[in-house]
């Protein structure tokens, strides 16, 4: 019996030694092999980041369709992509800018590094704006609603609002004003508004940010009731300003869009629309990967399977 036991112990010791040996060899031979295939990592089709990324690289049909992606792609969540790209030398993935860390390499997009500064100064292009739009003056269910909406828009531009936006993974526009310094301009917030309902809608990508903002703003403004019904970016204009829809049951007081306003939407005067944040997405690779810069074209070719090995993009 003792012999068998000691043999088992020996086997374990041997196995652990082999495990050690494995580790040292991989560390010493970690040079990048360009002939390896590209492992494509993506979020699942319900992800707003996926929509933002695919639209940003000109591959909008892949936002909700797995069938058009390169063969053998992997589906992971935000953290899953980060941790596996840190392991997988031949993988490419994308995450929101706020989650980029030093365990992976964030790629430059069209030669611009993915930093918050470059997003705010509008040079980093793989991003989309988060916009807001409100109804015309005097076109609200009541004066109270109008005053609360105006206070809310003012709140969006404060550092307090900015903190909430940043906590949700988006990037707020730079600001130095605090809510405390401007709240005296909004007397509506002193009174009890618990009977006032304000209707929020528009882009569903912004829903989380919008809900966090209203949840933080409600106690600051007399506990008004925020009603969220997010259906899509084009409803930001339609449900607040389109004469045919704005007064129906789906009408909204504040609408959000996760893209720039366009066409007839721009007829709304500039005081009634604006930007609250940027949502930036970064393509990431393993630290061993020599790639530093990509274009939308490169990323699209990697994600649709045109480029199969790393030599095709590096060479």
């Amino acid at each position, binding site marked *: *019996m003792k012999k*068998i036991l000691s043999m088992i112990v020996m086997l374990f010791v041997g196995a652990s030694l082999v495990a050690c040996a*494995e*580790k040292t*060899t*991989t560390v010493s031979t970690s040079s990048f092999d360009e002939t*390896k*295939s590209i*492992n494509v*990592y993506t979020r*699942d*089709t*319900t*992800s707003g980041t996926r929509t933002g990324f695919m639209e940003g690289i000109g591959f909008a*049909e892949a936002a*909700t*369709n*797995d*069938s058009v992606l390169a063969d*053998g*792609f*992997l*589906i*992971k*969540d935000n953290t*899953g992509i980060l*941790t*596996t*790209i840190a*392991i*997988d030398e*031949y*993988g490419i993935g994308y995450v929101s800018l706020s989650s980029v860390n030093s365990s992976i390499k964030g790629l430059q997009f069209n030669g611009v590094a993915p930093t918050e500064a470059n997003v705010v100064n509008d040079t980093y292009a793989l991003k989309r704006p988060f916009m807001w739009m409100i109804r015309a003056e005097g076109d609200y269910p009541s004066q109270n609603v109008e005053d609360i909406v105006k206070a809310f828009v003012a709140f969006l531009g404060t550092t307090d609002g900015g903190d909430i936006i940043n906590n949700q993974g988006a990037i707020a526009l730079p600001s130095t004003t605090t809510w405390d310094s401007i709240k005296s301009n909004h007397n509506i917030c002193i009174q009890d508004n618990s009977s006032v309902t304000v209707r929020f809608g528009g882009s569903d990508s912004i829903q989380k940010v919008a809900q966090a903002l209203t949840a933080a703003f409600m106690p600051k403004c007399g506990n008004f009731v925020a009603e969220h019904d997010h259906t899509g970016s084009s409803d930001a204009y339609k449900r607040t300003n389109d004469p045919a829809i704005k007064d129906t049951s789906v009408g909204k007081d504040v609408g959000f869009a996760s893209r720039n306003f366009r066409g007839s939407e721009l007829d709304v005067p500039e005081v009634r629309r604006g930007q609250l944040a940027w949502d930036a997405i970064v393509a990431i690779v393993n630290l061993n990967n020599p790639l530093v810069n990509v274009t939308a074209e490169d990323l699209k070719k990697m994600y649709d399977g045109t480029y199969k090995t790393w030599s095709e993009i590096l060479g």
Partner: protein
Amino acid sequence: MSQNLLKIKFNNTSRGKIIDKLSKIVFMSATIISASFIFIIAGIILIRGVVPFVTDNLGVGRVSLFHFLTGDVWLIGETFASSLYSIGFIIVSTLFITLLALAISFPVGVLTALFIAKIAPKPIAKILRVVIETLASIPSIVFGLFGAGVILKLVYDFSSLIGYQSKGGNSILSVVIVLALMTIPTITTISEVAIRSVDPAVEQGSLALGASKTQTNFKVVLSSAKSGIFTAAILGIGRSLGEATAVSLVAGGRRSGLSFDLLDTTSTLTTIMLEGLKETTGIDYDIRFSVGLILMMVILLTNILLNAIKRRVGVVHVKE
């Protein structure tokens, strides 16, 4: 006087009977409540899971049950606009993974149990028992984190060592290792109890007849305890089939094509339900109930099959 006494006595018994009856009702209603939850849950899953097959899903179109059960691609076409869902390849890979995990955890678990129950000195056995019981109570997400942080890297290094380009370690192998780690403690704890409850007289008889300790352990102790050991395997399989969180962290989210390649990505019934669940709506949400329905059926069928085997194994007696 004596009549009075009798009266009191009688009163007491009738009060006792009322209490008996009351407690019976209370216990029974508690049982009914807890038992009915099984039917409520199964019923709701059934009703919601059938919806994609019988309605046209708000204009998206009816899901074909045959295609759903036999297809090779999770979803052909655009999410929310297509009804071409199928999980045929996922059912097969789920069973394949469960079987592989059991192939590792069963021998390791049973041998560990044998060691703790029969071979290890008492104080060591005591410590080992605590260790195994602690392992069995570790939540699955912790195993998942260990899998994502350690096993993925090990599998990735291992495959690059043998010249295979792994997808960041996300593979059947990683899933199998995580599931094996999770089921070993379950199998060990239950088999150990079964092994310990083997009648010492049987064992001593074997030793007295001149069999060595090892012969006795394998041929007499293990075969006497096999019914209990089989129960351990059934519970292990149950845990493997039902695990979602830990598996989804290392599976890689395969969406098409059946693959038995140990180093390639995979999906199980539970991971496909979990991925995107929190963000999705409409048919893409409802279809997850259908997957849950299929999963419940798979578990039910496996249990029926295993219990049938167990009954056959159970009646085979040790040769006297």
